[in-house]
């Protein structure tokens, strides 16, 4: 039986194509010793070396003499013999996109790790948990959540709460369907590093106030349905207050006369305050005449006048650093 099979194998090999010949070798019964080990055929190729036979002999493919035949030979690829090269003939233009982009994470990657037991679904999922479970190995700027594999959320029993720096619309909708929540957090690269490696930072850093461009990006995700948690600058707070006022005014059905009267009252009070200020300034000018009761002659500045003077130094106060080492 074995011999017929071997003959069959050899016949098949002879009539096989090159693609079929690249079959791994048959396992053998030779004992496992240091002289009976070999790698798969085709794993290593013998190197063709310079100076040994054929086109690689004699001048070794470099021609005769000249700059190209020397050791360390060659010129850089943009060199054109002295003529101004193309990279310098043409002007610079344009801008490049920034390299500080977010890591992309799909929902199917998180679901796999929960099933393996590497992520705890009962607690909120942070960027630190994603790194420890090796969805990615490095994260410097943040994470964006995408919606590949959103149908698999039904296999889980618990709803998820995820904290990321950005998310797409379908991802937020899919997580909300299952009863979860998406939270947007703002990280600078330094704060992210403290979040991922807390043992390297003995002092806690202050949270950061995001710039206007980042705030607009966070507001866009809020419109998609996420919850935001970040320090709000002044112009955002003022915008929100104005929005609330407009909403309240629209709700209340106010007569136009009342509005005008209220406006007129405010204008009158403002005028009165201005008048009072002017009167005060005029009075102060009249009052500022010479009062010789509180007058003091300045000290004479003659040589030898400061010997008996007691010179007092300002007290030295060292700054106190607040180290939260409790």
């Amino acid at each position, binding site marked *: 039986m074995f011999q017929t*099979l071997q003959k*069959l*194998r050899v016949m*098949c090999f002879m*009539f*096989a194509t090159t693609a*079929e010949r690249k*079959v*791994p070798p*048959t*396992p*053998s*019964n*030779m*004992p*496992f*010793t*240091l002289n009976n*080990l*070999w*790698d*798969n055929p085709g*794993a290593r190729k013998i190197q063709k070396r310079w100076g040994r036979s054929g086109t690689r002999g004699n001048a070794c493919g470099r021609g005769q003499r000249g700059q190209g035949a020397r*050791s360390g030979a060659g010129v850089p690829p943009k060199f054109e013999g002295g003529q101004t090269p193309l990279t310098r003939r043409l002007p610079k233009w344009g801008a490049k996109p920034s390299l500080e982009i977010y890591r992309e994470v799909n929902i199917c990657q998180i679901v796999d790790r929960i099933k393996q037991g*590497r992520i705890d679904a009962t607690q909120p999922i942070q960027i630190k948990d994603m790194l*420890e*479970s*090796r969805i990615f190995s490095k994260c410097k700027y943040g994470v964006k959540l995408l919606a590949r594999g959103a149908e698999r959320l039904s296999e889980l029993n618990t709803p998820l709460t995820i904290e990321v720096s950005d998310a797409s619309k379908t991802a937020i909708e899919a997580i909300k369907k299952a009863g979860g929540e998406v939270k947007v957090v703002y990280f600078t690269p330094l704060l992210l590093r403290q979040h991922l490696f*807390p*043992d390297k*930072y*003995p002092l806690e850093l202050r949270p950061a106030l995001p710039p206007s461009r980042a705030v607009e990006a966070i507001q866009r995700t809020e419109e998609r349905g996420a919850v935001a948690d970040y320090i709000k600058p002044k112009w955002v707070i003022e915008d929100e207050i104005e929005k609330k006022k407009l909403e309240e005014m629209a709700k209340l059905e106010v007569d136009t006369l009342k509005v005008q009267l209220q406006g007129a009252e405010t204008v009158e009070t403002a005028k009165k305050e201005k008048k009072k200020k002017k009167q005060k300034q005029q009075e102060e000018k009249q009052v500022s005449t010479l009062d010789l009761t509180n007058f003091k002659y300045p000290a004479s500045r003659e*040589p*030898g006048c*400061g*010997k008996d003077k007691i*010179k007092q130094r300002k007290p030295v106060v060292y700054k106190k650093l607040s180290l*939260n*080492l*409790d």
Partner: protein
Amino acid sequence: MLQQCLKIFRFSFAANTPSLATPWSLRPFKTEVSVPIIRFHDAQPSGQSITLDQEIFNQPIRRDLVQRLVRYTDLYDKKVTKATLALRDAAASGAKNHPQKKTGRARQGHRQRPGRNKGIKAHGRKIRSLRIDLPRKVRLQAYKVGLTAALIEGKFTVIDTEKLNEGKTKHLVQLMKGFESFTQPLLIVTSVDPDDLFLRASRNLDSLETCTVKEFNIIKILKFKSILITKEALLQLTESLKQRKLALLGENKIVKKKYSEYPIEEYDPTKPLDLKFKVLREYLEDFEKLKQEGQLDKFIQDMPKTKKVGRINTINHH
């Protein structure tokens, strides 16, 4: 069609009996293997047995991975230590032999250039290491493949302990004769803390080698024809290989504490001081001596004083 026929024959020809010729898609053992434990002083089996982990001792046999690991461990410690002289090492100055022009001779820059008699060798040997790279997962898998192959060939025998009552080589030689493999090269694998008496007795013998679990190598697995392992060593081996796999998956990370979480010892005036540095201890001894003798105040008064330069005395008003 041809490939499908070959596949069927390959599957049907699989390991009814465990052999080294199993294909890559199958495991050699169908069930768990249990090995009997043998006593060291009798060379006879005790009634106990131990089951071997399937994820370590039942892996598909890959001869190419083992070859790669053997090459990696061979070249790990190897270096090229000899080097030829370069121009900066040559025993000649870097001066030009004669000026570039106005002599009737050819232009030359260095006395010991490569083409000349007594010149240095161009592009000669350099000091370098011969290490190569191999992925960590490949190293782990090849180690496990080597252990399964040794099991199939029947190299392993498990021992309860390696302890001896006396550290004499005579007694050890008599014990080894019971194992019938004394003439062949033999290896004994012990736990991380081996017995001192056993080491003393085994040091002078040529045909016997000992090593711990940390020094256990793929080269030693393939070199020796019979291997004795203690029960503790087997357990330590399985644990270390399991932790290696978990470390590759990213778990079992060593979490460092914050600086504030390390405990700080508060000062107890009742307890004596334990100082780390020698200089401070000498200062303490001198202090205590002077205190007992009652010459502390004198010592403080005789100490050299630093001058105080006041600001008022140095101002020049004129």
